[in-house]
C-alpha cells in the first residue's frame, strides 16, 4: 500500500475502486520515447523556460508591501520542498481547497499587497512551475484534513458522472479504458503528476484546469470555469486518487 493511503482510507477520503487495484502509471509512461526524452532532459524541456522565469519572479519584489516571495520564503529549494505535492490544500479564508496557483495568488494578495494574476497568466504559470519543480520526485500527499472530505466526495461524483453531447464520464476513459487506444492515441490514467506542464498542443505551459477544460470540450460539454468550486472538487479528488505517486513536474505532454 502506498504511504498515506491507509490514513486517507480511515478518514473516508479514499475508496477502493477498480482503478486502485490496477498499478497506477504516470501519463509519462504512455508517451512516445521522443516526448519522454523532451521531458527528462532539463536542457531540452521547453517548460524549463517557464521555470527560469519563475525563479526570477521568486526573487523580484512586487506589490505594495515591496516584498518578493524570497523575502518571506527564502531559498525555494528548501522552503518549497514538498509544497506542490501537498496541494490542493484547505484554505480557511476561501472556505474550500485551493490549488498551488490559487495559493500563490492568495499570497500575492494577502502578503505582498499585489494583484492576483488571472488564470493561466504567464507569471502565475512560471511561478507555479518553479515551485512545483522543488517537489520533483516527492510523493503526492494531499493535505490530510477532514474539511477536505466533502470536496473529495463531490469531486469523485464529478469524475464519475456522464457529461457532454458524447455522454462520457472521466471514469469511463481514464479508469475503465486507460492503456487502450482511442483513435490512435493512448488513454492515460489522468493522474496530475506533472503539472504545470508543457503541452505540445498548447505550444506552452498550462495548468491542470486548462487540461480538464480541454477534456470537457473533447466530450462536447461546457467546461467548468477556471478556479471554480467544481474544479476545486475535481482537483481534490484527482490528487487523492494519485496519492503516493511521485510528482514529475514540469512535465511534457502531447
Amino acid at each position, binding site marked *: 500500500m502506498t504511504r498515506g493511503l491507509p490514513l486517507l482510507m480511515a478518514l473516508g477520503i479514499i475508496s477502493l475502486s477498480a482503478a486502485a487495484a490496477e498499478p497506477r502509471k504516470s501519463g509519462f509512461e504512455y*508517451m*512516445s*520515447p*521522443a*516526448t519522454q*526524452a*523532451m521531458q527528462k532532459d532539463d536542457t531540452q524541456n*521547453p517548460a524549463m523556460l517557464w521555470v527560469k522565469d519563475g525563479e526570477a519572479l521568486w526573487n523580484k519584489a512586487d506589490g505594495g508591501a515591496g516584498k518578493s516571495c524570497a523575502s518571506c520564503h527564502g531559498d525555494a529549494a528548501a522552503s518549497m520542498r514538498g509544497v506542490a505535492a501537498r496541494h490542493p490544500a484547505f484554505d480557511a479564508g476561501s472556505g474550500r481547497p485551493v490549488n498551488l496557483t490559487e495559493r500563490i495568488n492568495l499570497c500575492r494578495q494577502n502578503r505582498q499587497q499585489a494583484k492576483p494574476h488571472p488564470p493561466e497568466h504567464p507569471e502565475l504559470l512560471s511561478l507555479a512551475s518553479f515551485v512545483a519543480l522543488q517537489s520533483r520526485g516527492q510523493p503526492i500527499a494531499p493535505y490530510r484534513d477532514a474539511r477536505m472530505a466533502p470536496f473529495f466526495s463531490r469531486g469523485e461524483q464529478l469524475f464519475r458522472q456522464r457529461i457532454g453531447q*458524447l455522454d462520457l464520464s472521466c471514469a469511463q476513459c481514464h479508469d475503465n479504458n486507460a492503456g487502450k487506444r*482511442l*483513435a*490512435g*492515441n493512448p488513454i492515460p490514467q489522468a493522474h496530475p503528476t506533472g503539472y504545470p506542464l508543457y503541452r*505540445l*498542443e*498548447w*505550444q506552452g505551459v498550462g495548468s491542470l484546469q486548462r*487540461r480538464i*477544460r*480541454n*477534456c470537457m*470540450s*473533447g*466530450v*462536447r460539454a461546457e467546461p467548468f470555469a477556471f478556479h471554480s468550486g467544481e474544479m476545486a472538487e475535481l482537483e481534490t479528488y484527482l490528487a487523492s486518487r494519485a496519492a503516493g505517486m511521485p510528482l514529475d513536474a514540469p512535465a511534457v*505532454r*502531447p
Partner: protein
Amino acid sequence: MWLSLAAGLGAWVVLRPAAAQAPTEDLAAAIKTYTGGAAVREGRIRFDIAELIDNGNSVPITISVDSPMTAASHVTSIAVFNEKNPQRDVARFQLGPRAGRATVSTRIRLATTQQLVAIARLNDGSWWSQRVDVIVTLAACIED
C-alpha cells in the same frame, strides 16, 4: 458517435522508411530553386525523426551529414524542406569547418501526412539529399 469522438480525440505519427515516392511538384520546384538546378545525389545524410510522434506541433529532428568537417572537406549548408505545410521551407543551417560535426537538431511542425527532404551542400559544390515519409493525424482533446 465514435467518428465524432475520433474527430475530437486522437493523434499519432508513424514513420515509414524512405522507399519514398518522388516529391510533389511544389516540393521539387522548391528544391530546384535552392540548388539552382544542380544534380543532387541521395546519400551521406541521416535524417532522424522518431517513429512514433505524439503531436505534429513539435517534432524533434536530427540531421547528420557524413563529413570529416575539415577545411578541405566540409558541409557548408543543410536545408530542410517539406511537402504539405503551407510553406515548403522548414529551416536552413549554415556550417563550416568550425562546426566540427555536421549534426543539427531542432523541433518542427508537421501539418499533415507528408514527405520531408534534407539537402546538404559540401564545399566541393556537391549536393546530397535524404527523404523521409511521415504520417500525422489530429491532436487529442484540443481547446475548441
